[in-house]
């Protein structure tokens, strides 16, 4: 078996394992990764990290598959108005995880040479975007369709939702980075297909 095939098999096996484990763990044992009513979003962090470290192609595929798991395991509910029954919406998880992969692969990557320290910045950015846009969309949805006020004040959103989620996501970033670097889909934690962008410039001051 040539090296390329071995590398491909490793990539498929490792990604499959993580795709099965991470969403399942998040919905099976959320109490072990929760703080102040928020649960660490392992799926989001994993997707962002894969995109950040291994590029858009990997991130998009992983994001879509993890999004399917997210929708199957714990779909969101949408309600057209206060009188109608809420229904589960399939596809929102896929869209969010795909956008997370776009976010992870587009910011702090090439310029920062996919420096590990900036992976935290990437996770923080994706988390903030997810939470802020999520609250804004739900606020708009409720105002438009249900004609009601949003139940959360600005202080509650910041202190009770955004900040705990940000903290938790940054905490779980550490083990996930270590897993992807040392037990990840690529040897030495680097995707050879995107290594060119690293070697093109001398930016050793940025690397850990």
């Amino acid at each position, binding site marked *: 078996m040539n090296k390329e095939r071995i590398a491909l098999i490793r990539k498929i096996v490792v990604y499959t394992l993580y795709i*099965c*484990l991470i*969403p*399942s*763990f*998040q*919905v*099976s*044992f*959320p*109490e072990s990764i929760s703080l*102040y*009513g*928020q*649960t660490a*979003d392992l*799926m989001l962090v994993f997707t962002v990290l894969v995109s950040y470290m291994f590029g*858009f192609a990997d991130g*998009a595929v992983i994001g879509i598959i993890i999004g*399917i*798991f*997210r*929708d*199957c*395991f*714990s*779909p*969101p*509910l*949408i*309600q057209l108005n206060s009188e109608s*029954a*809420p*229904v*589960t*919406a*399939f*596809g*929102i*998880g*896929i*869209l969010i995880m*795909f*956008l997370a992969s*776009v976010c992870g692969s587009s910011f702090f990557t090439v310029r920062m040479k996919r420096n590990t320290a900036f992976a935290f910045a990437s996770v923080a950015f994706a988390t903030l975007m997810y939470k802020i846009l*999520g609250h804004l969309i*739900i606020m708009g949805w409720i105002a438009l369709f249900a004609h009601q006020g*949003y*139940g*959360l*004040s600005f202080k*509650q959103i910041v202190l*009770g*939702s955004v900040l705990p*989620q940000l903290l938790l996501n940054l905490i779980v970033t550490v083990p996930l980075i270590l897993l992807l670097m040392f037990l990840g889909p690529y040897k030495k934690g680097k995707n050879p297909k995107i290594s060119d962008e690293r070697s093109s410039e001398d930016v050793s001051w940025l690397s850990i």
Partner: protein
Amino acid sequence: MRRLLTSKWFIVLMAVLIMLAAIVIGALPGSPLNKAFKSLGNITSPIQGFVKGAGNMVSDYWSAVTDGIAIRKENEEMKAEIARLQYQITQNEEAKIRYEELKDAFHIRDTFSNYDIFGASVLSREADEWFSVIRIGLGLSDGITIEEGGSYAVVDVRMNLIGRVIEIDDGESKVLPLLHEGFNVSGKVNEVNGATMMISGDAGLKRSGLCRVTGIDENVKLEYGTQIVTSGDGGLFPQGIPIGIIESVDYSDPMGVTATLRPYGDIGELNDVFVMVPFEVPDDVSDEPLASQVEEQ
């Protein structure tokens, strides 16, 4: 043109548009896309079941190692408790015979006697504050079905309200938890002819494990600890299921008295729940609670 088609942002834009279209089409009632999405659950559920089982096994093993001494002590206490309960059972058997005689004499029916109770394990909990539907291991294959717009009450082992079933698939059901902002149930003070009110999930109170209570008459005196049960209004839930206790009341606006309620049950702590499925009863037999029927008698 080729450059445009291979551009990352063009691909992203196209993918997002396709996904948005799929979400809208999938949300339409009876959409084949929705059925296709649901069938994906048949692939993902066993994976999650395996991971959960493995996690529980590790957790059980760890507990067995660390809790050995405590379990032994508890076991001794349980044996003493069993002996005491055995004695109580013999006493209660006599009381039960007497109760059955009275029940027949007064034509009293048990509060939930026209409901089948199905036990189910909690398969998965909420992924985050928005992906918050809970799955339980009870589905069409267990012989329960649900009509459009219908719903079944989900209770814990003490018959406390936990949520309601909103969808039933082959081997699992989706449950809307009591604390979810989409949840509404009509409740009443747990006494004969108790005042009715509306209990709803609230995004702001969810994190504190509380529900919002509205529709309270200004003359009704609610205080901390007042017990609230389902009123039976609306027909979705039977009357008399315990919901929770009043935590605080705000009388500042007489036209809009509101309160907060702390539910008895917490789905985050549970591994097993029970679904109450009504079965067909003759029209002349109504589902009145024990207390009110005794009063009528």
